[in-house]
């Protein structure tokens, strides 16, 4: 038997003609932690889904525990000792912690009746082994996201996993929770478990990984022991260019006030958010997932009703809007976080997607003016260099970057004064990412104000003129570009509620 528990050799995979992975190989030894890093869309998740049996590779082979693995069902793969913990946790919310851990494999007595005593004993042992303190009888719905993730890890271990894949676990964890996760990973290592840790946060990789594999645009860039890497090299591997070239800068004066939000509250999570937005600036909004960033975007855009406070355009006096339609008329645009469910009509053509908010200006008596419409689409295609076979192409067949450009084109067609970008580069390849940054600066130069929400701190710090950090539905602090560092932002984003209120 070889010294590797897992070898994935020359794995290739394409979707509808788009190459997601090209001859990627990784190998893992038992008892080590492997960092798998790369930008969004680099192919990390695709590779892991192939390992999990959710996708079938077009080419290449998987050697696991010394034998070539054929296509297998998810259940067979779990039985073979591979567990994958996805970002979207797969727990049954109404069931207790212990029941979730042994879901489908509950201990039974001879009559096939559930042996609850044994269930709780064994669950308790497991958590003890992991050094986790949790009430076993609590329904999962009562736990925090971080605790739920611990339940997933316990579940993986209960399946006697030899290889655990964690897909961006830190995306939903804050400081001390992350420390706990790392302690658990250390103890897993000691027990001989192999961990593949997917992340695009470099500090974590340096802290936990023994070896790092970098993917970019579906290709393997490098695999290096962590000792041979420093931060700058890793970034350059990931983005393909030195860090200071990634974020285009322009010098400009602060423009006039365009929008003021005062004490905005909603049913969702927002509790008294105030902000001012100036022409030609990028206002970055940072904060953990669930801190109210997306809810703020929706409130500004009239998508969620306000329960308190006001939003005004500086020029137009009182202009409170109750619907996206009114917000659009007032000159706002929202590029939503979840492109596929909120931004794009995936089954419809590029043309329909781009012109949908401005149909009334492209029709006479309700009849579409084809030439005018085609001109709008062609203009957008040139301006944003959208790669498409024709304006009739369905947007589901475009790459993530081009899909995002279509959504941007749609909103630029409305000629907005304020653009809210919620995670503008999520799932976008590096090249398109850079183009989107350039476009944002061009829009700034034309006086358009941009609100940019992002989970990626380098992006927030690199692009924003000012940064608001959100925490628990409030603004925890405002930072000027010069004073913003990752540590300071994380500090503001993860403070307890009472501390946040004091700032």
């Amino acid at each position, binding site marked *: 038997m070889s010294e590797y528990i897992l070898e994935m050799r*020359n794995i*290739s995979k*394409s*979707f*509808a*003609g788009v*190459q997601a992975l090209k*001859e990627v190989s990784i190998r893992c030894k038992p008892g080590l932690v492997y960092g798998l890093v790369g930008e969004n869309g680099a192919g990390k998740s695709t590779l892991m889904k192939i390992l999990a049996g959710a996708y079938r590779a*077009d*080419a290449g082979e998987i050697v696991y525990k010394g034998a070539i693995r054929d296509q297998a069902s998810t259940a067979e793969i779990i039985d073979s000792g591979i567990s994958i913990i996805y970002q979207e946790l797969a727990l049954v919310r109404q069931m207790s912690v212990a029941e979730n851990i042994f879901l489908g494999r509950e201990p039974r007595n001879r009559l096939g009746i559930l042996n609850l005593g044994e269930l709780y004993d064994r669950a308790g042992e497991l958590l003890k082994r992991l050094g986790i303190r949790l009430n076993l009888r609590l329904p999962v719905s009562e736990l925090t996201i971080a605790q739920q993730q611990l339940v997933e890890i316990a579940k993986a271990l209960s399946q006697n996993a030899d290889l655990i894949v964690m897909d961006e676990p830190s995306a939903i964890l804050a400081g001390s929770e992350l420390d706990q996760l790392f302690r658990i990973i250390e103890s897993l290592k000691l027990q001989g478990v192999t961990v593949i840790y997917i992340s695009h946060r470099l500090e974590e990789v340096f802290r936990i990984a023994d070896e790092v594999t970098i993917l970019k645009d579906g290709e393997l860039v490098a695999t290096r022991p962590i000792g041979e890497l420093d931060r700058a090299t890793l970034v350059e591997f990931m983005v393909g260019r030195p860090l200071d070239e990634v974020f285009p800068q322009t010098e400009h004066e602060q423009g006039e006030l365009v929008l003021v939000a005062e004490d905005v509250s909603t049913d969702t999570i927002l509790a008294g958010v105030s902000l001012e937005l100036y022409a030609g600036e990028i206002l970055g909004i940072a904060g953990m997932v669930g801190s109210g960033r997306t809810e703020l975007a929706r409130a500004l*855009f009239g*998508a969620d009703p306000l329960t308190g406070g006001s939003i005004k355009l500086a020029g137009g006096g009182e202009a409170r809007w109750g*619907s*996206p*339609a009114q*917000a*659009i*008329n007032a000159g706002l645009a*929202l590029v*939503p976080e979840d492109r596929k*469910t*909120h*931004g*794009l*009509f*995936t*089954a*419809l053509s590029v043309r*329909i997607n781009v*012109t*949908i*908010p401005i*149909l*009334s200006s*492209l*029709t006479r008596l*309700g*009849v*579409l003016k084809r030439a005018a419409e085609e001109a709008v689409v062609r203009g957008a295609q040139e301006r944003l260099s959208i790669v498409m076979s024709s304006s009739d192409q369905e947007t*589901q*067949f475009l790459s993530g970057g081009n899909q995002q450009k279509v959504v941007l084109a*749609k909103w630029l067609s409305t000629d907005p004064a304020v653009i809210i970008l919620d995670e503008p580069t999520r799932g976008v390849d590096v090249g398109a990412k850079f183009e989107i940054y350039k476009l944002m600066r061009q829009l700034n130069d034309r006086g358009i104000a941009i609100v940019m929400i992002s989970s990626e701190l380098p992006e927030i710090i690199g692009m924003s003129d000012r940064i608001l950090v959100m925490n628990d539905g409030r603004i925890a602090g405002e930072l000027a570009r010069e004073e913003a560092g990752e540590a300071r932002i994380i500090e503001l984003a993860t403070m307890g509620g009472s501390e946040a209120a004091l700032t």
Partner: protein
Amino acid sequence: MSLAKTYEAPIADKRWKTRKFVADYGVYIALLILLLVGAVLTPKLYSVDTIAVVMRQASQLGIVAIGQTLVLLVAGLDLSVGGIFIMTSVVVAEVGNGRNEMVIPAIATAMALGALVGLGNGLLVTKRRVPPFVATLGMLVLVKGATQAYTRGVPGGFVPDVLGIVNQSWSFLSIPLILWLGLNAIFIFVLRGTSYGRKVYAVGSNIEAARLSGLPVDAIRISVYILGSLFAVASGVVLTGYVLYVDRFIGSGLDLDSIAAAVVGGTAFVGGRGGLLGTIAGVLIIQILSTMVVLLGLDVEVQFIIKGLVILGAVTLYSVANVES
């Protein structure tokens, strides 16, 4: 070795293109094959008389199927059309009551009531968020019940003779056929060439994105349900004119057939995908199959079996073809 790898991507691409082709053109190819099979098995299918019958029946189904397609395009479903046929028949007979000059007011009354049913469907689906299946099923029972309560089970009145005009025909061309083709022409244009059509597809394709794009999504969906009911009234009028008496079971089966025709024609249950050309082909496939069963001298039950198989086959094919890329 390396050669084999280089060709991986194009193969995947080709598979996807085949699927797309099946999804886009499968129904027309199926219709063509059916016509060829018909030429061999039942040459009688190509007589002027048979064509006329097929076309008349296709028109009766086809008109209501236009409305059903529109409703399906906004990710809806309209089961209430069956009730509307009966209501239309009763209203035309009661209001018209054998007087030819009353035929226009009678039809207008049926349309007004039909529009109300559609409005009810639309309000339930949009404002109360009732799933379309349940909302329109409830409306079906309500409309049938109300019609029966009104007639006390014994429909009165007489259908004005002038409505028999729908039986006018020239060779295989008939008034219902002209109506069907005309309405199709209008609504194919509406769907493709007007902003209303765009909005219908957008709402069906992704309602949340449509709302965030500033579209009045509720108004659009309500209007589509009203249109769906009006097409059902139109089918009901044609059916009533065909039999010229009040029939409590008029148009039975056409309600579900209208859904089948649209689905066989490639309009997706999830909305935003499909269109009227496909539905025309779907209507013709269903009607020709039924006719072939009769021409072959098989039992009527066989019709249902074959119809069922065709629907299941079409749905299976589309679901394979539309596997998310």
